[in-house]
């Protein structure tokens, strides 16, 4: 602890101990605790307490009967735990009887303060920090803390109850770690008393008829097996397994969700899953006992396991597929197996859940689709993967939701009634359908996929979220459509689809909902980026009204849409796709160039998103040597930097530096590789001396822009500028034309101006800079030091511990004036 903080600490402790001084800002105590944790992690807690006796005084003081704030009491309990985590400090506090007085019956535990959840939480967290060594275990046993923790598992506060469960796991694990002479034996009877007590409590809870107690026990076990993989956990599982399995005999199975979590936790544990302790049998039983809504998560968990018996995997996959198999069966046009699951015809349970209630049906289908979506990309997914029936099921569901399904059976019609217009299922099915594009499918089914996607994109009933997902799924399917190997072009079917799709996109770009227009533009940008160079795509796009509409959306009232339109137009232009034909209404009218239009947006748009998008487009154009830029690159860069430099949005200014960097690299050559082993091409050093090479940079006023940015009040801009100037200086150093620094009146005046800029007065411009002057100024600047300073957060001084202590002391007595307010 630095001396300044040490000086402030006694006054602060006195304030904390004074019940008349409430803490207004609840974050202060949290931050104070963070600071103490950092100090104790780095050094001795005992020394800290000895050097700062006010801390122990504070802990003693909070024990006096007084109307102390529950927050301060909770803080003190947690702080004590932090200190007592080190054994010598623990002994020190024990000598003063401080620990039993804080954590034992005599402490807050028996008082009125205990009714505050924050005190109970502080008590648990204090013990959690403290329980790090064998002495702590003895203390816990002596003060009867474990019994209190048992009861806190059922606390009315979720936070307290959860923390109590985790503390039990921690104590169990600590006691099994054993003393220095070695861990306890593998026989449960040999386990330490504390561990036996906890295990006994878990057993009792598992035998209980009360679901909350069973849930608590299962949660403790889940955390234990999840975090600890020592051999004793196998013994524990063997001992408790019959009790866990017995839960399956109850109808309904209690705490099903927690049971699933436990079984999966055990199955994931490397030691436990390989032992023959009936785990796989229990998993199989659980799969068959739980209802389809509960079993889905377990089935997914089983299928994610790396090593698992094949029969169990098959059973789990069948459980996962059941709901979709039911959908296919209910909507089948003719008799016969659906292809998804042939043996589920007798499984009426899923059908029973699907059909009677809409809520249950929707919930089960959404969960199933989400589970399968998660499973598909995994390497351990079931093989063979029933791609075709799953595609069929997804399409069928979308048809049922969209109203285009016409099932013949009663069950199918009932399903249709339940799902018609259901946005939740539509969203889930579209996500799933998109993921299914990773695999191919039979052509007729793929045709159906495109048809149903088109149906959704066309439908006036599709909500904006559904449309967004439909666009995403469409793009994924277009990406995966069959193509010639080695060629990324769209095939003829996809092109046919595209011709149908573009009029729909056109319509969506005119939607009254900004969300839809924006999703349409994002979709267009993706497609253009991917297939903009392909003749078929270009032809179809140019034959449509899409480019013209996109250009119109540059003036959309919604800034998000304007920004997306800028990006889309930038992309179209890069691919030569936004050459609008002469307007028939104004045949002689001057078409404003896109560059001019974008510059206009950059200088006049009132919102940041479109201006930022313009800067990104310009940077890309410069990088790609876009036709509009190549004509007069210097004029382009100069113009853009001038406008960007005045922008109020720091992200636009930062983007301006990105553009400046590209220009700099193009002018001087790319940066050298830092890897010593990399095969580096000869440095693209300018043929002419460096000063000559810097001329274009000076002409576009890049340095004025960069120096101004260097002292920007927004830190990322300053940092980016610093990086750019450092890069330039590195180039200077590598240049053979490096000359000795030269002082001149020009250099002095620029340095003086920069000093004023640094002080915040940036009114005066630097004027025309000569390369020599720039080089001299760059040499004289402490850019490395500046970079170090800029790497810190702008409020690091205000966030320092000393500042925290000062703030806490400063607020004393003024709370009445500025009472807790909000935003």
């Amino acid at each position, binding site marked *: 602890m630095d001396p300044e903080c040490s000086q402030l600490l006694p006054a602060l402790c006195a304030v904390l101990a004074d019940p008349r001084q409430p803490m207004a*800002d*609840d*974050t202060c105590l*949290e*931050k104070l605790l963070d600071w103490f944790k950092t100090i104790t992690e780095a050094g001795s807690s005992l020394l800290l307490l000895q050097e700062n006796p006010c801390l122990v005084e504070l802990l003693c003081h909070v024990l006096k009967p007084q109307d102390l704030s*529950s927050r301060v009491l909770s803080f003190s309990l947690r702080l004590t735990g932090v200190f007592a985590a080190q054994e010598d400090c623990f002994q020190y506090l024990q000598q003063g009887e401080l620990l039993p007085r804080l954590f034992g019956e005599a402490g807050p535990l028996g008082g009125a303060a205990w009714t505050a*959840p*924050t005190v109970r939480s502080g008590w648990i967290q204090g013990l959690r920090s403290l329980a790090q060594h064998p002495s702590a275990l003895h203390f816990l046993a002596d003060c009867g803390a474990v019994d209190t923790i048992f009861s806190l598992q059922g606390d009315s*506060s*979720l*936070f307290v109850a*959860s923390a109590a469960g985790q503390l039990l796991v921690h104590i169990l694990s600590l006691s099994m770690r054993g003393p220095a002479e070695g861990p306890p034996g593998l026989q449960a009877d040999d386990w330490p008393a504390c561990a036996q007590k906890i295990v006994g409590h878990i057993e009792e809870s598992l035998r209980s008829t009360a679901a909350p107690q069973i849930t608590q026990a299962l949660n403790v076990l889940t955390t234990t097996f999840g975090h600890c993989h020592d051999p004793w956990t196998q013994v524990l599982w063997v001992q408790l397994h019959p009790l866990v399995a017995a839960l399956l005999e109850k109808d309904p199975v209690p705490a099903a969700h927690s049971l699933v979590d436990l079984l999966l936790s055990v199955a994931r544990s490397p030691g436990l899953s390989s032992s023959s302790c009936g785990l796989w049998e229990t998993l199989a039983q659980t799969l068959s006992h739980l209802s389809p809504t509960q079993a889905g998560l377990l089935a997914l968990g089983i299928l994610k396991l790396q090593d698992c018996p094949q029969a169990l995997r098959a059973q789990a996959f069948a459980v996962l597929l059941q709901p979709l198999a039911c959908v296919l069966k209910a909507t089948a046009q003719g008799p016969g197996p659906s292809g998804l699951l042939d043996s589920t015809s007798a499984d*009426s349970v899923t059908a*029973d859940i699907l*059909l*009677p209630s*809409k*809520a249950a049906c*929707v*919930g089960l289908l*959404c*969960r199933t689709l*989400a589970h399968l979506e998660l499973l598909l990309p995994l390497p351990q997914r079931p093989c063979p993967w029933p791609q075709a029936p799953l595609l069929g099921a997804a399409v069928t569901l979308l048809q049922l939701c969209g109203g285009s399904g016409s099932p013949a059976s009663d069950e199918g019609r009932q399903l249709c009634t339940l799902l018609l217009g259901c*946005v*939740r299922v539509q969203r889930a099915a579209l996500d799933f359908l998109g993921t299914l594009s990773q695999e191919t499918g039979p052509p007729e089914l793929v045709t159906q996929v495109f048809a149903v996607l088109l149906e959704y994109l066309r439908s006036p009933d599709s909500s*904006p*979220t559904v449309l967004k997902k439909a666009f995403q799924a469409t793009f994924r399917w277009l990406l995966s459509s069959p193509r010639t190997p080695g060629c990324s072009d769209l095939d003829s079917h996809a092109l046919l689809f595209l011709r149908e799709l573009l009029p729909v996109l056109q319509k969506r770009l005119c939607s009254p909902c900004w*969300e839809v227009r*924006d*999703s349409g533009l994002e979709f267009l940008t993706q497609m253009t980026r991917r297939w903009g160079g392909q003749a078929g795509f270009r032809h179809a796009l140019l034959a449509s009204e899409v480019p013209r509409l996109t250009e119109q959306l540059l003036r959309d009232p919604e800034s*998000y849409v304007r920004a997306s339109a800028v990006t889309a137009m930038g992309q179209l232009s890069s691919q030569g796709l936004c050459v609008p034909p002469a307007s028939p209404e104004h045949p002689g009218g001057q078409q404003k160039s896109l560059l001019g239009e974008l510059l206009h947006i950059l200088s006049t748009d*009132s919102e*940041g998103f479109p201006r930022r998008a313009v800067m990104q487009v310009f940077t890309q154009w410069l990088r790609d040597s876009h036709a509009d830029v190549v004509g007069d690159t210097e004029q382009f860069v100069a113009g853009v930097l001038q406008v960007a430099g005045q922008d*109020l*949005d*720091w*992200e636009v200014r930062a983007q301006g530096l990105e553009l400046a960097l590209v220009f700099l690299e193009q002018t001087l050559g790319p940066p050298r590789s830092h890897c010593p082993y990399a095969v580096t091409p000869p440095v693209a050093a300018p043929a002419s001396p460096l000063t000559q090479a810097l001329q274009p940079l000076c002409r576009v006023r890049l340095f004025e822009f960069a120096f101004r940015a260097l002292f920007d*009040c*927004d*830190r*990322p801009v300053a940092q980016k500028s610093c990086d750019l100037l450092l890069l330039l200086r590195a180039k200077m150093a590598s240049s053979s034309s490096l000359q000795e620094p030269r002082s001149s009146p020009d250099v002095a005046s620029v340095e003086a101006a920069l000093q004023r800029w640094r002080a*915040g007065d940036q*009114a005066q411009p630097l004027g025309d800079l000569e390369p020599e002057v720039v080089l001299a100024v760059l040499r004289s600047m402490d850019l490395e030091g500046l970079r170090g*300073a800029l790497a*810190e*957060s*702008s*409020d690091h*001084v*205000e*966030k320092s511990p000393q*500042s925290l202590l000062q*703030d806490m002391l*400063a*607020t004393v007595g003024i709370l009445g004036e*500025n009472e*807790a*307010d*909000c*935003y």
Partner: protein
Amino acid sequence: MPEIRVTPLGAGQDVGRSCILVSIAGKNVMLDCGMHMGFNDDRRFPDFSYITRSGRLTDFLDCVIISHFHLDHCGALPYFSEMVGYDGPIYMTHPTQAICPILLEDYRKIAVDKKGEANFFTSQMIKDCMKKVVAVHLHQTVQVDDELEIKAYYAGHVLGAAMFQIKVGSESVVYTGDYNMTPDRHLGAAWIDRCRPNLLITESTYATTIRDSKRCRERDFLKKVHEAVERGGKVLIPVFALGRAQELCILLETFWERMNLKAPIYFSTGLTEKANHYYKLFITWTNQKIRKTFVQRNMFEFKHIKAFDRAFADNPGPMVVFATPGMLHAGQSLQIFRKWAGNEKNMVIMPGYCVQGTVGHKILSGQRKLEMEGRQVLEVKMQVEYMSFSAHADAKGIMQLVGQVEPEGVLLVHGEAKKMEFLKQKIEQELRVSCYMPANGETVTLPTSPSIPVGISLGLLKREMAQGLLPDAKKPRLLHGTLIMKDSNFRLVSSEQALKELGLAEHQLRFTCRVHLHDPRKEQETALRVYSHLKRWAPRSFWLGLGRSGARGGSHCASRQRPQGPLRAAPSRWVRDCGVHPHPGCCPLRGPRHQGAAGVLDLPG
């Protein structure tokens, strides 16, 4: 037992990040999704792991409702939807939908600008999150699904702020968000129907305060600004992008006009245009005065307030500048503050709360020598003023709202524990309504008695009428019939009709047993005596009730040929009466929902 459960993950006995989970009739709703600006790590967001434990968020939650655009109510939304993974619907009013992304973006920029902020959302995430929003109109009943409906009411406080009624069947909860029961410069007072919900969840920021007149505070503010400008000083007002800034702009604009002042007023981030746009667009959300004068002169088209350029800060002479961010912790407001702090003629007015760790917090706590980077010390000589312009209901207003809504219970959030305790007692004593104030993580459970509508067959009603008893709303009476539960519908019909509809035959069970009688009388005489005895004490007949509801949704009855399910003989005393209000068509049946029993009920004649 049906119940409503409420668990605050934030705003339980604090004024931090509002986030309240409500479970009502099997539906789960999250009310607000706020962030705490006092932390720069994960603690800034509510701990959503308590929800994700229940499975996938989108499966667990039916919807999220955002009451207004302040960050302590919506700041965690992009994190929740784009990083934690909630993919369901988010409801808010149209103005909130428009303004929310601006504030989120503003805060994101500040967070990135400051640096040192970890795990923060991006601009794209904000946009993607806003695309999931379903905007609602005031008083529009929005059907989230077949059972859950929500309705927004005007809350004052800030533009677009709303209270929400959440209703499932006959059970309902009202969440106020932040509200103001008195009108201010540009907004009206909160208003809501007398909707008698099961529970009213209300904010309680000023639970123990009767606030002074806002006019006084405004006068004070104007006086201070005027004095500073008159003496040639510069006035800095740090603000967040939208909200309070607009209210202060209206104040100054009107004052400047009236006093014919010439000192320039600047707004630093080009937000005036944006604010104008939204306030014009949502003019119907402002108060009556603004709406009335809108035609002649739009309050939000400021004559005196101009866009600020960084170079203006060094201009000589007086000026007033609104600059972001509001807590002086980064960016332009901090830069201007550093420039102006050394001159005693200047003034900074902090119109809102500042968290610890900001320069705003320091100067509000009276610190005048601030350490800056590089061990430099900035001496603050300028005048520092704090003026709370937050528009919350005071104790009187909260009591007024509770009286207006007439809830069965009240739950206090968004306030300090001690103040809540006081208000809780006041509500319980004066209004005779149960009041709760859970801490974060604590669950309040309220049992409810849902009203389940039951249709009554015309035949049954006619039969009752035939007995000469006319319906009388004031005199509820018992009506006997057979309750059929089918496809989530409940109908009360005559037993004959039930049998006919379900295609079932009537069962008669005859119980026989062999009894050895030791009676010295003659056999005929003994038989007669036994018959008389049985005739007197045993019921004439009784129906059979079946145990569980039909798994396929149909009602099942015992059939003579093929009995289904466990058969139980039901003595007459087990048979249930259905208390029915004599309204034709349907009637509420008070009792637990989704009860397992189904079958034919009858009374002995």
